[in-house]
């Protein structure tokens, strides 16, 4: 029988399998092993965690392929890796390395000021960030198989993640109430294809899974965004910038699985040591979430 690879269903299918789970940023094979031991559903390989990118500055790029291969060899769970916005050759390299998802990410320094990668031409699926529904639909129109709300990476501050999730899910709820003429108005306002807006009107949901990233530092943060409607969480600096990464990682996994049960969230939140210190959003020099369009 004929086999089809890289189809929409296969790309979005892996995102379905990651639901209810935690995807953890790792920069070494050792960290990847800690993440897998803690119950991560996938790891995100990158050269520096966002908190360090923020601190050190400079151009942030795709990781060294040797590091990505080391991480792939260290774990049995899916391995994702980040490419710069618009840098389709970094994406080609990541596909050639056999990563399981490419994150076209604002956390890295953008390579193109006007264009994101045309993701339809790839076999590997892509995840992209979004701060609002229009941005999410533009990424889906370019072929993203998974959307994550951006939040503000590397801050340990959940406020932006909450803002972005509420923006995306709130507009979805409002569009389901729109009449047929208003659907066109929404498409104009969101700067998004009317066909995608019509689908949201009809189904009441985004075309692809919606995960949350950017600022999750505690089990309660993870449960908060899950209750708001995220379907899984990405945790970046929040784990490996804390005082006891292995214990915190496991606690965030359990809180994400049991996000509606405050007794379990309370139980796993005890004695985790210090969370990452965190940043006030209005004290930041660079807002990563503003990258991408």
């Amino acid at each position: 029988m004929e086999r089809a690879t890289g189809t929409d269903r296969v790309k979005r299918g892996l995102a379905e399998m990651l639901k209810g789970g935690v995807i953890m940023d790792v920069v070494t094979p050792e960290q990847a092993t800690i993440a897998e031991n803690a119950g991560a559903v996938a790891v995100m390989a990158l050269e520096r965690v966002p908190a360090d990118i923020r601190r050190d500055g400079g151009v942030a790029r795709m990781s060294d392929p040797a590091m990505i291969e080391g991480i792939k060899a260290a774990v049995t769970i899916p391995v994702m890796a980040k490419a710069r916005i618009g840098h389709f050759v970094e994406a080609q390299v990541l596909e050639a390395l056999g990563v399981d998802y490419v994150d076209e990410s604002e956390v890295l320094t953008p390579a193109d000021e006007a264009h994101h990668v045309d993701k339809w031409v790839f076999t590997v699926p892509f995840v992209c960030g979004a701060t609002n529904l229009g941005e999410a639909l533009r990424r889906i129109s370019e072929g993203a198989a998974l959307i994550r709300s951006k939040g503000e990476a590397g801050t340990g501050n959940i406020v932006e993640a909450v803002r972005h999730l509420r923006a995306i899910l709130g507009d979805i709820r409002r569009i389901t109430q729109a009449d047929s003429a208003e659907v066109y108005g929404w498409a104009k306002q969101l700067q998004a294809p009317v066909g995608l807006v019509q689908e949201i009107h009809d189904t009441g949901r985004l075309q692809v899974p919606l995960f949350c990233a950017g600022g999750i530092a505690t089990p309660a943060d993870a449960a908060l965004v899950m209750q708001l409607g995220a379907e899984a969480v990405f945790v970046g600096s929040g784990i490996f910038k804390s005082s006891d990464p292995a214990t915190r990682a496991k606690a965030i996994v359990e809180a994400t699985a049991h996000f509606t049960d405050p007794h379990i969230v309370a139980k796993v939140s005890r004695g985790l040591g210090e969370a990452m210190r965190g940043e006030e959003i209005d004290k930041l020099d660079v807002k990563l979430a503003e990258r991408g369009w």
Partner: protein
Amino acid sequence: MGAKVGVVALQGAVGLHVEVLRDLGADPVEVRTPEQLSGIDALVLPGGESTTMSKLLDSSGLRAPVAALLADGAPVLGTCAGMILLATEVLDGRADQQSFGAIDLTVRRNAFGRQVDSFETDVVIDGLAGGPFHAVFIRAPYVETVGPSVEVLATVDDHPVLCRQGPVLAAAFHPELSGDLRLHELFMKGV
């Protein structure tokens, strides 16, 4: 109300199984704690990451009561990670990963490769009316060896991908992603 079918909801593609079961007139229940197993007629172990699920089965206290249900002969459908969790032996897994041994299979994890190798194809399912079944394989396992009391219902490249042993039905692929209800129907006939 139809049969009460517990969908183990610790992680993975829970929602799609719930929707399919509801379309078939069953009463699906998401199961994250032992209490939620009460009054369950049948069980679904969905796709997801089997290593994550194995850990959460322990931390949630679900492992022992689920094992007891399976030992009592409750009908169960396992898809992908669910197949791995139902098998007697897992190859290419993690050393600390534990399965229920409810169906006499040796399963190789991620046997079809990584995500770039994930695929969809039509498979012929033994005894299923209505033509081939469109099956979606995501970083999928396949079965290396089957015990004497296992029926192989479908294969890809001669590797078993759908197996049945009494009340246990295990698929390497994802019927919940296909929009084809026939495999869930076959499962519900046994409930």
